[in-house]
C-alpha cells in the first residue's frame, strides 16, 4: 500500500483511467448491436490506449514528446477510421441495412 502511494502520480493515475476506459469500451464494443455504438466504443477504447501510452511513458521519465507524437498520429488514424466506418455504415443503411 505504501508502495502505491509513494509511486503514484498524475501520469500514473491517467494510465489507470486509460486502462479502465479500455476495459469498459471493450465490453461495450462486444455487446452493442448498433454499429454507431460500436464505433463510439472503438473511439473511447482508442482514447484509453492513448492515455496508457502517454501516462505510462511519462510516469517513467517525465514529459516525453515521442509518445505524444505517436498519439497525435493515433488520433488522426482514429478519425480516419471513424470517417471510413461512417461512410460504409451510411452506404449500408441507404441500401436497406440496419444501423
Amino acid at each position, binding site marked *: 500500500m505504501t508502495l502505491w502511494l509513494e509511486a503514484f502520480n498524475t501520469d500514473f493515475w491517467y494510465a489507470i483511467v486509460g486502462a479502465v476506459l479500455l476495459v469498459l469500451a471493450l465490453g461495450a464494443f462486444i455487446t452493442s448491436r448498433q454499429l454507431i455504438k460500436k464505433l463510439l466504443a472503438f473511439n473511447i477504447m482508442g482514447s484509453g490506449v492513448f492515455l496508457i501510452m502517454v501516462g505510462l511513458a511519462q510516469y517513467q521519465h517525465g514529459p516525453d514528446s515521442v509518445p505524444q507524437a505517436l498519439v497525435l498520429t493515433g488520433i488522426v488514424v482514429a*478519425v480516419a477510421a471513424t470517417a471510413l466506418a461512417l461512410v460504409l455504415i451510411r452506404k449500408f443503411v*441507404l441500401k436497406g441495412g440496419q444501423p
Partner: protein
Amino acid sequence: MMWFDLALGLGLIIAAIGVFRSEDLFRAVVLFVTFGILLALTWLRLQAPDLALAEAAIGAGITGVLLLDTLGVFRQHEQDINPRSSSQLPDISRQWAANVLALIACISAAGLLAWSLFNTLKMPAPHHNLVTVVEANIAYSGVSHGITAVLLNFRSYDTLLEVAVLLVAIVIGIGLRERVTTSANATSDEGQSKLSEPPALLTSLVRLLLPLLLITAIFVLWAGSTRPGGAFQAGALIAAAGVLARLGQIDIAARVTTILRLGLTLGVFIFLIVAVSPMLTGKPFLTYPAGWEGTLILLIEFMLTISIGLILLSLFIQAPRPRIPAPVRNAIPATGPNAETNKGGDQ
C-alpha cells in the same frame, strides 16, 4: 491539484459509461463529444497541449460533426423510406452469448492490465530514455518544438504513412459517393442541399467566423515549429471552417474534380518529392539537406495542412446521403453499364 485529476479521471469514466448505456444514439453522441472535451482537458493535465488541441479539433470536433451528420441522415432516411420493422427485435440467445463473451473479455483484459500496471510500479526506470535522445538531437532537426521534430523529422516515415491512411479513407469515400451522383442529375442534388434555407443570423455569423478560423489555422500551423501546433491541428481547423461554410450555405464545390484530387494528394506528393530528392545525392530516403530542415518542414507542413483540411472536409461532404426522390429523375433514364445497380441502389 490531485483532487482535480481525480475528478477529471472519474468524469472521463462516467462520460464513457454514459455513452455506452444510453439507448438514444443522439444522446450517446452528445455524451461522446463531452467525453472528447474532458479528454482534451486531460491532455493539458498530462502536459501535452498538442494533443489537447488535436483532441478538441479532430477528436471531439470533426468526429462529432461526422457522427451528428450521420444521425441526421439516418433520421431523414428512416422517416421517409424505412420505418422500423418488428423483425429488428434482438435475438435473445445471441445477445446472451455476446454478454458472456464480453464479460470474459473484460475480466481477462482488466486482470492483465491491472497486473501489468501494478508491476510497473515496482520496476526500475527503463534502459532507454528517448527524452534525452530527442533533446540531444533537436538542434539538428530544424525546429525547436519536440513533437514537430519527432513527427516531421525523426519519425517522418510514420507521418508519411499516416497521411496515406487519410488518403485511402477519402478515396473510399469518393468511390462510394460518386456512384450516387453519376446516375442522379444535378437538379436532385441541388434540391437536397437547398431543403432548408439557413437563417440569416447563422449565415452572417459564419461569414464573420470563416476568416477568423482561417487566420487561426495559419497561426497554428506556423506556431508548430516552436510551440504546440502543427499541420494536423491546422488542417482540422480548415476542415471545420469548410463544414461551417457549408452549414451556412456558402457554396463549396461538392464535385470531385481534378483540382480537388490535386488538393487531396498535394501533401503526400510534396512530402514524397522532398523525401526522395536527397537520394539523388546518395543520402537516405527522408533525409533533409543540412541547413534546409526548417524551411522544408514548414513547406511540407503547409502542403499537409491543405491536404488534411481538404480530406477531412471531403469526408464530410462526400459521405453518402439519401437522395430526395425528384419527379424529374424519371424523365431521364439512367444509362451506362451500371444503370441497373444504380437504380436498385439508393431509393
